[in-house]
């Protein structure tokens, strides 16, 4: 109790110095929580969007399909098995290579045939339900930018059917969609499945079959091999893991700055209050009691900072959680799943866990300089003689 009283009196006596320390520490608190929340929000968003727009509840791949080997595409297709015919549960996609000629420029693309009325993936395929002479196509905004195609533009598509005969036709851009998942956007265009099957002379065939998120399956249907989230999200998870490690390093750096601020304040305080400490010890205060006063004093900085951060930080973080954080333009073109606006996620565990760690470590860094006092001779301390 005595330690608390003395620590409180010293903090109040510190005036502006105390205010600045508390303010800086509260700012560190806030930045640590905000940064971790942003990373957590990104993790959640990237995973959710990738599942909703690309992966679904899992995918069946034709045994010859290898997403990293476009050369294998000519052999990677097969008749959709009877077991996987339900339109509510399964979404067949046929993939083929082609060349487009936007304004006469030559550009290789992947054609993806998809059912226009599908509801399994969050891709606006309803725009493909057009009864026009040209092939209706939709494409992502990155692909549109890259090929300089705009809504309602016409572009010539040249492909080879399954037998190898060249064919070409004009396509009309029916819609340009924005997506957080670059892998479903860059270098590809979507068209009605039936149209692509006709173009390729592959009636009733597909390359992959996406399963809806409600269906839980884990069985292969030869030659279709089931790939679950552990396989389909492996790359994303690994990337996010790297982000988590970087996030922890950042978190540690911010924490270190807070520690240095406390440590510095405590060292300076001890240096300035040598005579006071000497007198206290001469009057009968034990060394342990003195250490406790300084440790409590440092910890109180942390508590005050936490309270201050809660006062001005709560509305700020709430605003960010609701309205999101605008990501600089071009970040999504690096090939990672990132939206234009990222919504941080501040969990109960994150806020209170961070507060606990900061308070605990603040107590430790306050204790360390105070420990030196135990070695101090009271007469030397009263005389102001440095040890």
């Amino acid at each position: 109790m005595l330690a608390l009283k003395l620590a409180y009196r010293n903090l109040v006596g510190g005036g502006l110095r105390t205010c600045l320390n508390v303010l800086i520490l509260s700012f560190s608190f806030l930045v640590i929580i905000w940064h971790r929340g942003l990373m957590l929000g990104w993790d959640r968003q990237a995973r959710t969007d990738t599942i909703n727009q690309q992966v679904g509840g899992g995918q069946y791949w034709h045994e010859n399909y290898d997403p990293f080997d476009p050369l294998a595409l000519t052999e990677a297709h097969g008749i959709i098995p009877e077991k996987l015919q339900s339109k509510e549960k399964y979404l067949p996609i046929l993939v083929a290579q082609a060349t487009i000629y936007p304004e006469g420029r030559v550009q290789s693309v992947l054609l993806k045939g998809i059912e226009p009325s599908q509801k399994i993936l969050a891709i606006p395929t309803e725009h493909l339900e057009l009864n026009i002479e040209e092939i209706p196509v939709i494409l992502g905004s990155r692909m549109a930018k890259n090929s300089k195609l705009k809504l309602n533009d016409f572009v010539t598509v040249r492909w080879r059917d399954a037998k190898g005969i060249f064919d070409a036709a004009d396509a009309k851009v029916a819609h340009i969609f924005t997506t957080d998942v670059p892998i479903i956007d860059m270098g590809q265009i979507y068209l009605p499945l039936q149209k692509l099957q006709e173009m390729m002379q592959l009636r009733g065939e597909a390359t992959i079959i996406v399963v809806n998120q409600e269906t839980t399956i884990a069985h292969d249907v030869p030659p279709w091999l089931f790939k679950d989230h552990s396989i389909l999200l492996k790359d994303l998870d690994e990337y996010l893991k790297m982000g988590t490690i970087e996030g922890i390093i950042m978190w540690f750096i911010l924490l270190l700055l807070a520690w240095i601020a406390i440590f510095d304040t405590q060292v300076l305080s001890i240096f300035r209050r040598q005579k006071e400490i000497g007198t206290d010890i001469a009057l009968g205060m034990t060394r342990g009691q003195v250490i406790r006063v300084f440790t409590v004093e440092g910890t109180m900085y942390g508590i005050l900072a936490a309270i201050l951060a809660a006062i001005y930080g709560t509305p700020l973080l709430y605003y960010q959680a609701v309205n999101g954080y605008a990501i600089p333009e071009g970040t999504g073109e690096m090939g990672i799943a990132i939206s234009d606006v990222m919504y941080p996620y501040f969990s109960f565990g994150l806020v209170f866990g961070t507060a606990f760690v900061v308070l605990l470590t603040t107590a430790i860094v306050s204790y360390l300089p105070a420990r030196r006092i135990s070695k101090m001779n009271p007469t030397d301390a009263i005389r102001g003689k440095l040890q």
Partner: protein
Amino acid sequence: MKKIEVFGNFLLFSAMLMAQIPSAEEILKKIDENMVFDQAISKSKMVIHGRIGDRTIESKAWSKGNDLAMVEYLSPAREAGTKMLKTADKLWIYTPEPTDRIITISGHLLRQSVMGSDLSYEDITDNSSMIESYNAKVLGTETIFERNCYVLELVAKKDDISYYKRKIWVDVERMLPLKEERFAKSGKLLKKTEILEVFQQDGRWYPRHMTFKDMLSRGEGTEYFINSIDFNVDIPEYIFTKAALRR
């Protein structure tokens, strides 16, 4: 009375001309006799007219039948030493030091343009027989490049022929397709080639100077010159092996 006489003469002349036109199969056979060879070693030059200027690539090619071909780039210095080996439907490209790497090209990549030209890897190594690949019919006669030509329409016999339909203008005297249009299955014009200069060697007529134009792209086309060709050669088999790429 005089008008009827003139019209009658015109009909008679036309009938005589039509009677002289050989069958489409005969024309294709004669084209094959000129264009298809068992083996040959040739030196050629390709001038690619791009939007930012022209590029010239010189090469030497060893060919055997329709399945085997080896091409080595001689210039420019940057490309010199690069080799392409084609066997059936596979193609390997070797790039010399510093990469010293062989990459395999097959499937769709075979249809990609060679170094930004209007020719695909398939076009450059093609030595297939027209009569084996296409059903043909004679549409009539026309004069192009001041040469009398038969006009033929070719439709693919098999499913695995790159161009479903072709229209060719065949020099009546030399039996070379002076002009050719290649169409997609949908009827869209994909490629146009013209033979601007020919030469005769070993009893066969062969193109000296050709132009290729990808009709879907806005490029300026590619010119192709055969500088020399030797049909009387016996090319050893090892030339068409992957090991020969690094020699």
